[in-house]
């Protein structure tokens, strides 16, 4: 009798243990399922981020950063650099209500970025009312200079379209200056843990910025250096301008104003 009771109690104990184990396992499975879903979502977000960042830095750089690389070896490459700046925007911003002006500025950047992307370039940096775009930095591009100049011309057309809307809002039309130069640069990820960017550095970059500033002196909107002009075929109509002194250069710099492209 006692033995039977003990056997029943043992069986009940075993059943209870099995039940509890089952409950624990079921709970663990639910938690694993939740974790799997969370990991999947995180994985999707990561994939999306990698694809999105691929528009701003080369794929291998994005990949190394994603794997936690602290430093990425800089590389030397030949790129075409574009600086574009709105002319007279600072005094305008002092006169006009920012609530009216900032949407116009954002619309300007959106239109210019789209045009640059359509011509195989990417906007590397936005500085106030100016931008720096690169051609041939993310993917090697044999036609980078022609792409950059065609982008500049398309930006001119896009600015005309934007101005038609700007004037309807009672604001003065926007004008820009675009400077283009081609040369060897050091491409690198620079910055700190808090803020880093993929960018290019070197004399070629500085010269592009100086050439953009020269547009005001020459009274033109698109200006290219010799290194860009020699890569253009005769469909590009350019006009030579007098050599000009620029900071950091011992010799005056020859530039060409871009008039049109005849396909």
């Amino acid at each position, binding site marked *: 009798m006692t033995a039977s009771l003990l056997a029943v109690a043992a069986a009940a104990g075993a059943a209870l243990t099995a039940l509890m184990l089952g409950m624990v396992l079921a709970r663990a499975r639910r938690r694993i399922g939740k974790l*799997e879903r969370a*990991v999947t979502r995180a994985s*999707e977000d990561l994939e999306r981020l990698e694809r999105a960042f691929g528009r701003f830095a080369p794929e291998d750089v994005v990949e190394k950063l994603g794997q936690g690389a602290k430093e990425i070896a800089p590389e030397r490459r030949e790129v075409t650099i574009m600086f574009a700046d709105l002319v007279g925007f600072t005094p305008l911003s002092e006169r006009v209500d920012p609530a009216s002006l900032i949407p116009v500025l954002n619309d300007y950047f959106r239109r210019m970025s789209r045009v640059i992307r359509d011509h195989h370039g990417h906007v590397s940096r936005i500085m106030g009312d100016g931008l720096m775009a690169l051609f041939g930095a993310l993917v*090697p591009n044999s036609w980078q200079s022609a792409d950059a100049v065609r982008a500049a011309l398309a930006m001119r057309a896009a600015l005309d379209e934007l101005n038609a809307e700007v004037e309807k809002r009672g604001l003065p039309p926007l004008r820009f200056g675009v400077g283009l130069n081609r040369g060897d640069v050091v491409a690198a990820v620079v910055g700190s843990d808090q803020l880093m960017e993929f960018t290019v550095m070197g004399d070629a970059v500085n010269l592009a910025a100086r050439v953009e500033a020269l547009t005001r002196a020459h009274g033109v909107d698109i200006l290219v250096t010799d290194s860009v002009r020699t890569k253009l075929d005769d*469909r590009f109509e350019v006009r030579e301008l007098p050599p000009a002194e620029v900071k950091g250069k011992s010799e005056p710099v020859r530039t060409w104003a871009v008039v049109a492209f005849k396909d």
Partner: protein
Amino acid sequence: MLPHAVARLLKEIPWGEPVVPIVHDPEFAADLKKVMGMDAPNFHMLSRSKWLRTVILRVSTVRTSYLSERLALLASLVTAQENSCRFCYGNARAFLKMLGLSEKEIDAVEHDVKTAGADDNERELLHFCRDLSRSNPRPARAQFDRLVSMGYDPRAMVEIAMIVGGACMNNRVATFLAVPLVTELENYSPSFFKRLMAPVWRLMHPAPPPPPPESLAPVTGPFAEIVSLMKGTVGVVTFHDALVGAFASPVLPVRTKAWVFAVVARALDCQLCERGAARILSQEGVGEEVRRRVLEALAGPDLDATEKVLLPWVRETAHYQTEVMQRRTYELRERVGEEVVLEVVGLAALANACSRVSMLAQ
């Protein structure tokens, strides 16, 4: 662990309307049934181009002699993922499931070839596939040699370059033409019975024997230098026949085809392909100075009206975004017509494949 993460992301990529209509061809249907065991209606988008349909069917069903079928399919999957090709990705995934791989194993590979569950050697191999597919820049020969030193059979490595090159071609044809997606394949899940029978099926369909010795003989025909890089593997016959078929097609002049190859070679910085294209252009009466001028501008009085429209489009085929490329291909169709668009899509895709395979020499 990561069910369908990439599959879902690929589904976020808009996929446009077909660029050319599906024209059912009974003769091609018979070929499809013979090779694949079934007619595949979407393949009939290519039915009006005999060389292209033959090449795509052959490249899609090629069996390797030295590389395992599993690795060959994994390479195709990684390539389709890199090229964001929903059509080929769905196909490769379904075929892997037919081979008996679980969702979990495929997901692990597709998520990130660096952290996949495969062993170190396999990860390295798939990484090579991705770099070759990406070609930004193309992997150096040293990467190939390192894999050989890790124990991979050099002939299997040649086959993997051929598989990635072929997959790049398929991806481009499917993406540029916006071949209708087969949702049944994207969502395919083999039954328990099919999974059980997978090993038996593999036993019944062993890998083909190595190609006959004649494939080791010097190769002739267009881009023979590139084809001969695959000597001793099935790649020689596949690429040789593809190139001969493409250059024999009457739709576009030989000179235009050579320009297509030259532009893709320039876009991918493939000197071997550019030399091959230069040779053909020279035979067609195009001198070095004209070639230099045209390749710098992708335009000029030396090109005919069709070439002037085609070449700027061709350069886009090296690195592209699906949506943008499909839009540009619709625009191209409006300017040159369906027959030419089908032809140039095939040519550009084949040129991309050749430029990738040529890394074996560099």
